[in-house]
């Protein structure tokens, strides 16, 4: 069972490596969106510092959502997804493995590049750590909950937009807690509670979302 999961993660990483555009698209989108806000709002330093956590989080959210559509679509198109449903591991494990690979390719790079964006917004140094931690805890949740939406909208016309509509309400708690943690820290308060809550989100999401995604895949592949 774990062997299958490992094979799947390695496979998806190998595919991402050979199709390099995927990684860079997500990253580039993240950076571009973050750069748009000062252009729209004005570059007043105090204002930027204040909106930085929110902007970075929203950009991460949108970037994650953009790459979700591809989670199952390619495998569905060439028939490999069907084979995974008939594989040796429970579908929940298969889904978790794919979501993990998705996070490694589309989520983790955001965590690593976020400090650079934070510099762009002149976010106070001590807050960079909280920001990175909040993204580290939050982006996997985005991948794993987003997988439910990706599975439900598999193969539908208007897939990308529909996926966003379905998944954004579910993302709201993560966004609020993630950006909120950084703001709490910025106000001199302890963000521990929020970060702990995000950890709890992660645990619960990992425990239950793959099951919902597996059910959704079976429904979509009928």
């Amino acid at each position, binding site marked *: 069972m774990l062997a299958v999961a490992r094979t799947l993660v390695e496979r998806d990483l190998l595919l991402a490596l050979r199709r390099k555009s995927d990684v860079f698209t997500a990253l580039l989108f993240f950076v571009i969106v973050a750069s748009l806000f000062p252009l729209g709002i004005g570059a007043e330093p105090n204002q930027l510092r204040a909106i930085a956590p929110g902007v970075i989080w929203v950009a991460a959210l949108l970037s994650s959502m953009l790459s979700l559509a591809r989670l199952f679509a390619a495998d569905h198109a060439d028939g490999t997804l069907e084979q995974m449903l008939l594989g040796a591991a429970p579908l929940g494990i298969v889904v978790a493995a794919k979501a993990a690979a998705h996070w490694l390719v589309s989520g983790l790079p955001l965590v690593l590049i976020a400090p650079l964006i934070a510099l762009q917004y002149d976010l106070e140094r001590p807050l960079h750590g909280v920001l990175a931690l909040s993204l580290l805890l939050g982006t996997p949740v985005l991948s794993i909950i987003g997988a*439910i939406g990706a599975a*439900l*909208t598999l193969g*539908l*016309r*208007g897939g990308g937009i*529909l996926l966003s*509509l*379905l998944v*954004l*309400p*579910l993302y*709201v*708690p993560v966004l*609020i*807690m993630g950006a*909120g943690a950084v*703001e*709490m820290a910025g106000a001199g308060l302890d963000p521990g509670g929020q970060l702990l809550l995000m950890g709890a989100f992660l645990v619960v999401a990992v425990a239950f979302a793959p099951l*919902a995604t597996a*059910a*959704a895949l079976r*429904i*979509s592949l*009928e």
Partner: protein
Amino acid sequence: MTTQSIKWFWFASPATFYPLAGTLARVTGLLAAVFTLAGLYVGFFVAPTDAQQGEAYRIIYVHVPAAWMSMFIYVVMAFWAAVGFAMQTRLSAMMARSLAPTGALMTFIALWTGSLWGKPTWGTWWVWDARLTSELILLFLYFGYMALVASIDERRRADKAGALLLLVGVVNIPIIHYSVQWWNTLHQGASVSVSKGSSMAPSMLTGMLLVALGFWMYSIAVAMVRVRCEIRENE
């Protein structure tokens, strides 16, 4: 298992449910009119004027019941989704589909009346308070369900996919609600709130409950009419 459970399954067949739905629609439609008018009468003429907000506050007699119903209907839809998965009945999916537009309407009314309340009270057409923000997200959840079900041509897949989405949504609602409330306290403190926080006179509560009952009857009536349309289209 007794005759009781056999009776439920008898009505689970769309063909048998059809006439029952018609009767229910007429009865609840009438009750809806009665209760809503009674509630609005109490709210607008019997309940006392608010000390701080004057007459404008009376919009809550529509706003609060609509908000209650918007939540309630979503939960009922999720209930039908669960029943559909457990019992594999076609009618459950039809019930969920029939309730969705009314649920969305209630949410919209809650948002709209909330906005109307905001203008004379706070001077703005929109207030980012906890309840209104939660209602907005609830509206997205309704739209998401309706859009998903509408974009799947294969009926069985549409029913099941919608049902799954409802179950995922209903589980997330408390989490969303809590997060939004916390977010509200983080950013604005307890100052701005589209709700009647302090003590409520008994007549105010009566008014709201009566209107809520009226909205509930209305929702059932409309859902029954829609279910009949669905049955006619598909059986």
